[in-house]
């Protein structure tokens, strides 16, 4: 289960690639052969399961394309003493 999740406001994207260059798990890429309303190839998530919700993409994006969610820390189930 993915630890994080990004929502992409595709029409804001200018295809600059800054987010792609900082994603620590390398799951961002620019679309190929597809363009947004501005005429740029928008960013896509190639493997959503790997997202950690670190928000690096949101921190570097000049165009505020990302909304980021992260899975809440689950309380650790008490492990029964052996």
């Amino acid at each position: 289960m993915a630890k994080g999740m990004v929502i992409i406001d595709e029409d804001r994207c200018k295809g600059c690639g800054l987010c792609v260059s900082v994603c620590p798990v390398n799951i961002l890429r620019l679309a190929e052969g597809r363009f947004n309303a501005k005429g740029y190839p928008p960013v896509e998530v190639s493997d959503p399961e790997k997202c950690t919700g670190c928000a690096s993409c949101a921190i570097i994006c000049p165009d505020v394309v990302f909304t980021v969610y992260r899975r809440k820390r689950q309380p650790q189930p008490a492990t029964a003493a052996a």
Partner: protein
Amino acid sequence: MATIDIPADMELVYQRPESLTPAHTHYCPGCTHGIIHRLIAEVLDELGLRERTIGIAPVGCSVLAYYYFNFDMAEAAHGRAPAMATGMKRTNPDKVVFTYQGDGDLAAIGTAEIVHSANRGELFTTIFVNNAIYGMTGGQMAPTTLPGQVSTSCPSGRDVELAGFPMHMAELLGGLPGTAYVTRQAVFDVRGIRRTKKALTTAFRAQLAGLGFTMVEVLSTCNTNWHMSVLGALEWAKDKMVGYYPLGDTKVSDAVRAMLEEK
């Protein structure tokens, strides 16, 4: 945007700050002006200052900043934002006032205004975006253009014998007694962006406490007029610009230090 179901066990960690309007910016792809706008908006949201803030836009690529910030904005003549901010802050001392200025605006045509405002210890904040070039007008040499750097008005590179040396504004203003907090930061990687945000928070907090003039110089890119790729511009900036313009604080007054130690 289509509605997307957010799993119940997911929490929001980043969303568009309220201090930005929904407008799309006109900046070139990868221009770091957008990052700096976002950071100012995040800081004003976090400090709960949106309803009390007046920003002043410059002449330069950020001339349309008044469309992008979701609080009161004014537009100054080229270089005159500090004069406007002086009047606004003196007549509205309860407001938070800042100027947003490029290096052509602040360090060329507006040098007198910024130097005297800082020296008088005016209680506003300046965000100084140093991209070492005139962006809006097509890439002419700025006072901050590096030695040897090519621009349309120095096509064989800046010759310091002819054009003088690039100006270190953070050092210059930090040396004046009226300033409380002056720092130079860069938005070339995630770490630098986080540090810049922290510096902006310190500057606005110092303004709220009335401690003196505050300025955050932010090294920024202009990939379009540097004639580089977006990532190439970042690499050049990290290598060449940071080498010439050292990052860090050039003024932290005792009062600002005490404020930072309090919390």
